[in-house]
């Protein structure tokens, strides 16, 4: 009568030899994502505390944000999530060729997003907004910067998976490796969904 005898893991071909039947690394990843919610929650909370708290003469969001531009990179990240699930579906079918393609597409979309962020940061900097000028600058750059760092980690992770796949070391039985990376990647994407709305779209 265990509570957690219920479901087998989503995609693992064999049931794990654990009390819940769930893969240990996957449990770890989900607890990690719960923890990450608190990490980004604190950063977003900080941004919101300082939202609207601007001194006369300071640059405010309206002055610097370019919504069309950011929409495009937000879109790129969103689509990378699609590529990610397609990569997972591919490896679960045993289709290593498609796996490699979709992993590369995911990483590429991630890189496009990062490129957009680099451009945005430089352009804001040129207009005089940086982490040292105001609470807006500080909380904005640190929030989006840490998100960017997460995306970079994800890109590195995806590329390592690609290398493994290229060397023939990823196969259907190891689809969990891709699934776990995917969980991380989608999480980074949904954080951006929130940041995009809360930081960029909702006007002050």
């Amino acid at each position, binding site marked *: 009568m265990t509570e957690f005898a219920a479901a087998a893991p989503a995609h693992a071909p*064999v049931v794990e030899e654990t009390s819940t039947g769930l893969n240990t690394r996957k449990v770890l990843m989900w607890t990690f994502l719960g923890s990450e919610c608190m990490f980004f929650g604190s950063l977003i909370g900080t941004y919101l505390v300082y939202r609207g708290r601007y001194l006369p003469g300071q640059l405010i969001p309206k002055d610097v944000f370019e919504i069309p531009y950011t929409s495009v990179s937000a879109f790129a990240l969103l689509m990378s999530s699609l590529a990610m699930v397609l990569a997972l579906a591919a490896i679960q079918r045993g289709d290593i060729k498609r796996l490699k393609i979709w992993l590369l597409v995911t990483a590429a979309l991630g890189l496009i997003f990062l490129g957009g962020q680099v451009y945005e940061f430089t352009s804001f900097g040129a207009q005089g907004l940086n982490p040292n000028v105001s609470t807006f600058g500080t909380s904005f750059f640190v929030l989006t910067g840490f998100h960017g760092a997460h995306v970079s980690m994800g890109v590195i992770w995806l590329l390592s998976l690609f290398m493994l796949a290229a060397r023939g070391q990823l196969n259907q039985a190891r689809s969990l490796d891709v699934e776990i990376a995917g969980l991380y990647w989608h*999480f980074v994407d949904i954080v951006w969904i929130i940041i995009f*709305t809360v930081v960029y779209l909702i*006007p002050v």
Partner: protein
Amino acid sequence: MSAQAMVHPGEKPHPQSREYVILAIILSAVTGIEVAAWYWEAIRALMIGGVVIDLLPPVLIVLSAFKFALVVMFYMHLKFDHRLFSGFFLFGLGAAGFIIVVFIALFHFLRAPFPVT
């Protein structure tokens, strides 16, 4: 034992590539609506029942929560996976959400505006 036999009867079938693409189209569409709403000046001052209301923030929040939920439920398979995973994630998400809401209340609504020094 074969993999087949181990699949729990209660488990629902997972979406296939086609569904993933459809989902992506929905997500793109919602993003489109968000940006469009941002451009639509009128939404920021709608007359409803004689009061002027800025509907943009609530609309944006609902839409992005919708996107968030779609990605989590389908791309991350939370809808099909073990309850335990939802438990972990939702507890973290809930706590973070609570803290954000309380911060907004504390710093923007529950006290007088800041005296600027």
